[in-house]
């Protein structure tokens, strides 16, 4: 005995939906990678004027004057490296509440290795200590005008969280729509002629319940891995 024509059509539709969702996920991933590659290609290090330099057995301490558009708010910054720990600190020219700026981090070969978005809370004349990667050597700073207050920043952050959730949902839906026809295919192959009797209402309900559990687990795992991909590091607190 074989499956009804209607059931087959439903399974094919499910399979097509899952393929569509997988393609969508791959496209989102490729576009986000392209965005990063684009920044890497277009963003060149703009030399800031060095004010002072101290080197000591592989460690260094350099103070630069900001020369870009950010100099209206930030006048100087200091990069310090001690024992493979590189850190950065800014001198903020005027007191601002909720300062948000991008830090483009370059290695010694002037290659962009990281982009950080830094949000300072409260009125400060000096930023918190920002820990950089081991290979960090030079930086450029750009004030993020779009996120110049706490509300805008929070809104932007919520948007990113929402995007993460959407991607996690899509992956779970893709899993659902793929697993269901695969389950029929596999059980049809195993049970041969008893496939129709196996897929009675009770069994289908049980399979669906089990599949929903799997999808929820998938959502949690994917969401957690995405959150780790875009880490939010709390700065040093007072």
């Amino acid at each position, binding site marked *: 005995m074989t499956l009804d024509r209607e059931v087959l059509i439903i399974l094919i539709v499910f399979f097509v939906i899952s393929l569509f969702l997988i393609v969508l996920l791959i496209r989102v*991933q490729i576009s*986000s*990678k392209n*965005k*990063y590659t684009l*920044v890497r290609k277009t963003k060149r290090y703009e030399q800031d004027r060095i004010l*002072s330099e101290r080197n*000591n*057995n592989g*460690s260094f*301490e350099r103070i630069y004057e900001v020369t870009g558009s950010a100099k209206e708010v930030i006048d*100087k*910054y*200091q990069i*310090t490296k001690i024992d493979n720990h590189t*850190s950065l*600190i800014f001198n903020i020219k005027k*007191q601002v509440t909720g300062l948000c700026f991008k830090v483009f981090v370059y290695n010694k070969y002037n290659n962009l290795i*990281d*982009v*950080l*978005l*830094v*949000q*300072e*809370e409260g009125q*400060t*004349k*000096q*930023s918190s*200590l*920002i820990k950089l990667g081991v290979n960090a050597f030079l930086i450029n700073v750009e004030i993020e005008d779009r996120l110049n207050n706490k509300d805008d920043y929070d809104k932007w*952050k919520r948007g990113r969280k929402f995007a993460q959730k959407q*991607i996690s949902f899509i*992956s779970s839906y*893709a899993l659902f729509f*793929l*697993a269901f026809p*695969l*389950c029929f295919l*596999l*059980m049809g192959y*195993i*049970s041969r002629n008893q496939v129709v009797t196996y897929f009675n209402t009770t069994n289908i309900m049980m*399979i669906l319940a*089990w599949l929903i559990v*799997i999808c929820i687990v*998938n959502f949690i795992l994917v969401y957690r*891995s*995405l959150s780790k*991909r*875009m*880490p*939010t*590091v*709390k*700065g*040093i*607190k*007072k």
Partner: protein
Amino acid sequence: MNNYEFISKHNITVNQDSELQVNDPILLHEYMVFSDHKKRLKFVLLEFKNISHEIIHQFTFEVYEYNQDNQLIRKSTYGLDELNIRKKTRFTFPNKILVLDDCSTIETRIVSAESESLIWNGNGWESIEIFVEQTEPIIEASMEEIPIEMKSFSEDTIRSTEIMRLHKNEFSFNWLKPIVLLVIFLAVLVIIYYVSFSILMN
């Protein structure tokens, strides 16, 4: 700590001729100079004395470093808050202050101090309301003057920051997880099928 070598200890005697120093609410009482062999760094530990009649909650001070020829080689500013230094008591600054290798002596000068309701700003104690705007930044070190190991200070004194890493594999996740879950889903169904089938056969 084994890498640290004690170099010298200096007791500070108050110069009665220096009106500025005598009027300071906090005085440097003594300091010890150490060197770190491993990192090849030199640092000092400071002990202050609160000579005022106020309980001091935060203060900012400048450190002047002099070489053997008594020439000023560097000036730096540090601050500390959330303190509770009672009047006429000594207080050890909790962080080591890095100094230049050729520094032989140091001097300190208090820039500002703050008690519960009063602020000292170089010209005696005044009501805190007048100086609200000026007391906002806890540490006000100008960039040239921050020592190489500013980390130890910053962890205590600097305000909060949120840092987010952008662009790098922004929305990519490990595809292995959904695939493994799919395999688990199908495997469990197959196992249940065979178990129920064998039960029915029996």
